[in-house]
Structure formats: structure tokens, C-alpha cells
């Protein structure tokens, strides 16, 4: 579970991205982060995988304060969390298979485990048949599936998705949502920042709305609440 207490984040240029965020997210929840552009959604999720450090306040995962991790222990935080981005962040020179295997090589898994697990997650996201393709040879939706496969390869307890459907057409987006829901079904916590009114209003989940770095609304099964 994730706990944030009075989290403030000012960037070096003076912008206040978070202004006192308090939140509790239980294991296995599916949470939408909504709000206007610049509200602090991306900054919010970065607090969780330590993409940025809060200026004040505490962020805890499973009751462990992230500020107790030293700089060189940050990889340990990242290994418990899978991250999916709008722009996929795949390595263009590696095949689909290699892109996913990469995440496991980095944490020094054995080659046999890597082989089995990569094929397993590629199958899970329905892209096994493209294992030997390069990212450029795939559609956006297919690339995002690969990115999700990479994010869950290590069986993380938390998956963070920052606008995972931001670059995808609606049909493809539903496919991605289906995969995220499946992952959530296995007990993985999902936190997803999104601008998609359609998705939030159709697949009903807990909705946290941010504005100017503050939580202005937090309701289970809520609506998107903004004009599309």
C-alpha cells in the first residue's frame, strides 16, 4: 500500500507541482489520477517510484518511508514498481523480446527464468507472435503492450501508468485497458494518470482529481468530472 502525508514538491525552477498531498492507496486498488494539464499528476506518480524526491512530507510504500532509502538503494524501489509511459520508452534497436528481457537482465535474473518469463508476459499482453519484431515495426497499441509486458515482467506489486492511452486511438485504448484490468485482477495495484473521460466514466474505479498540486476530489467509482 501507498501512503503520502503532506507531500510538497517544488521544482528547481520554482514551480510548485504538489502542495500538500495526503492519500492512502490499498494493495490491489485501481486508481485513476485526473485533472487539468499541469495539475501535478505526473509529479504525483514520480513520488511513488522515486522519479523525484518530495521537498517535505513522507511517502511510504508498505509502511517503509522512501526517504530512508539511500541514493544507491533507489533501484530497489524501482524493482517493486512497473512504470508505463505514454511514449512507451522502448529501445528502438532491441527486438520486442529483448526489450522485455532487458528489464530482467538488469536485475540479474537467470537466463532460463528470463526466457520463460518474457514469453509468458508477451503472451499475457497478446504480442507473443511479434517477439522478434523491432518496436518501429509495431503499431502504437502493440508497442504499448510491449511496454506493459516489460513493466510487469518482474511481477511488481504496483504498476504506474502515466497516460498509457495518450497516444492511442480509442479502439486500441480499450485493449490496453483490458490488459491493465487483467493485471489488476491478479492483485497488482494500478495507478493510472489519464485525460480520457470516456475510459474513466466507462470503467468505473476510484478517481483522484488533482488541481494545482492538491487533491480536490477522491471518490470510489467516480466520474472524470471535466469537459473532454
Amino acid at each position, binding site marked *: 500500500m501507498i501512503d503520502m502525508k503532506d507531500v510538497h514538491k517544488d521544482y528547481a525552477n520554482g514551480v510548485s507541482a504538489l502542495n500538500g498531498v495526503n492519500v492512502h492507496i490499498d494493495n490491489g486498488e485501481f486508481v485513476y489520477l485526473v485533472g487539468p494539464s499541469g495539475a501535478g499528476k505526473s509529479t504525483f506518480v514520480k513520488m511513488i517510484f522515486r522519479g523525484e524526491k518530495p521537498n517535505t512530507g513522507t511517502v511510504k510504500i508498505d509502511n517503509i518511508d522512501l526517504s530512508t532509502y539511500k541514493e*544507491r538503494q533507489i*533501484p*530497489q*524501489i524501482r524493482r517493486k514498481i512497473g512504470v508505463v509511459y505514454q511514449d512507451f*520508452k522502448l529501445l528502438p534497436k532491441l527486438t520486442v523480446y529483448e526489450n522485455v528481457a*532487458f528489464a530482467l537482465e*538488469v536485475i540479474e535474473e*537467470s*537466463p532460463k527464468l528470463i526466457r520463460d518469463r518474457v514469453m509468458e508476459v508477451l503472451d499475457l499482453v497478446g504480442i507473443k507472435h511479434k517477439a522478434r519484431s523491432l518496436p518501429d515495426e509495431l503499431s502504437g497499441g502493440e508497442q504499448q503492450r510491449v511496454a506493459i509486458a516489460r513493466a510487469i515482467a518482474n511481477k511488481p506489486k504496483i504498476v504506474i501508468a502515466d497516460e498509457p492511452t495518450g497516444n492511442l486511438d480509442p479502439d486500441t485504448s480499450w485493449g490496453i485497458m483490458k490488459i491493465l484490468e487483467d493485471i489488476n485482477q491478479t492483485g497488482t495495484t494500478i495507478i493510472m494518470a489519464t485525460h480520457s473521460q470516456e475510459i474513466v466514466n466507462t470503467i468505473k474505479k476510484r478517481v483522484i482529481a488533482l488541481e494545482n498540486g492538491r487533491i480536490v476530489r477522491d471518490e470510489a467509482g467516480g466520474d472524470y468530472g471535466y469537459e473532454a
Partner: protein
Amino acid sequence: MKLNTAKRHLREGSKNIFRNGWMTIASIGAVTVTLILVGVFLALVFNLNNFASNVESDVEMSVYLDPTLEKDQVEAFQAKLESIDKVGTVTYSSKEEQLNQLMKDMGQTEWDLFEQDNPLSDTYVVKTSKPQDISSVADEVSKLDGVDKVDYGESTVDSLFTVSKYSRIIGAVLIIGLVFTAIFLISNTIKITIIARSREIGIMKLVGATNSFIRWPFFIEGLMLGVLGAIIPIAIVLGGYYYLSNNVSQNIDIGFVQILPYAPFAFQLSGLLLAIGAVIGVWGSVMSVRKFLKV
């Protein structure tokens, strides 16, 4: 580190060498040029050093005693000379011994005359423990009562010391300067390749790679660049020195002017170049990655 991880780093590091194309060639070229120059300078400096220390160890002074001294006064000089600070060995050579030597060298007959009235002086040959002290000790000795003349070939010896001292200093400064230039060049080239791969590093960090995991392939890449850059210089050293020792040394082999023998010197120099290349490569890559990982 696990064996599979080590293999991965090796694979990635060598892949980068091919991936980075002309950048790799530029880095290797920088190391090659540096090591050729370093190799030539080292060959020169080591030979000069060897030459200088050969000559230095031969430096000695002849102390000619006043011919009017009595036998026991002459003998007392042994202890007197030995008690002087910085003096190493003192060897006595009587005027009779010298005359015999001369007669042996030149053919006996014409020298009969001198046997009654030997014109040579009793002489002590003095070596200082450090060759550099020769002139100050010579000054001191020449002030002693009963010393006729002190001779150590002042001007030759003094200028030899100056030449060998400055050649060592200049050689060292040049080599250090060249090595740092190469380190700078290689760190810059690796930095460019790292920037080109910043996305990859960012993604590695995102999926939980440690800094050392990220660093290793670059470390290996640098090592390989340095070692590859040493190949041509080593070939030049082995070939060039072989030519030198076979041809030139025979022509200038006059007495003490002799270059260091091909074996083991050329091999030692090659090993040294390889080591310098490796250090340059590793140092260059470590320098460029270190800055980058902080981001």
C-alpha cells in the same frame, strides 16, 4: 557479480564498439596516436636514462699526489679520502703500477729510461657514492695538503648530468601531457556515445538497474578502445625497435653508446603501452559515465 551478468556486460560493451561506428574509430585513433608518441618518447627516455646511468656509474676522479710525499704520507691518504663525506670507493694506484701498465700498453723498450726516474705520480681513484656529488667532492679533495691535481673531466661530466636530468624531466612532462590528452579525448568520445544512449540509460534506471550495472558495459567499452588503440603502437615498437637494434645499434656501437637490447626491452615497452592504453580507456570511460549517472 553473476557469471551471466558478466557475460552480458562483455557482450554489451563489445556491441557498443561496433554500434558506435566512426566514434569508435575516432577514440581508437586518439589512443593510437598518443601511444605511438608515448612509445617513441619512452624508448628515447629509457635509452637516455640507461646511457646516462652507464656513464654516471663510470664517473670517477683521479687524485694525483705531490711526488715529494713520503711513502707513509701517501698511504695515509687512503683513510683521509675515505673519511670525506659522500665518498664511495677509493682505490690506490702507485706510480710503479702505472708505469708498468703504460709499458705493457706501449711496448717496453723505449721506456727503460723512466724506470730510474718515474715521472708519474701516485694516484688515488675516487668514486663518489652518488655520481652527482663528484664536483663538490673534487673541490674538497683538491684543497687537501699534498694533492697535486684532481681530474674528473669536469665539463663533459657536468653537461652530461644536465642533459640527462632535463631529458628525464621533459620526457616525463610530455608523456603525462599526452596521456591526459588521450584520456580527455576518449572520455569525450564515450560521453558522446553515452549521450546518444541517454534514453537507454534512463530506461535502465526506470526498471531498477543499479549504477554499477549501467557503468560496466561502458567500462568494458573503454577498456577495449584503449587496448585496440595499443595494437598499432605495439606493432610499431616491436618492428621499429627490431630494425633499430639490428641496424643502427651496430653502426653507433662505439664503446658506451649502446641501445637497450631488443629482448626484453621491446616487450617490456609493449606491455607498458598496453597497460597505458587500458588505463586511458578505463579512466576515460569512468570519467564520462560518472557525471552522467548523477542525472
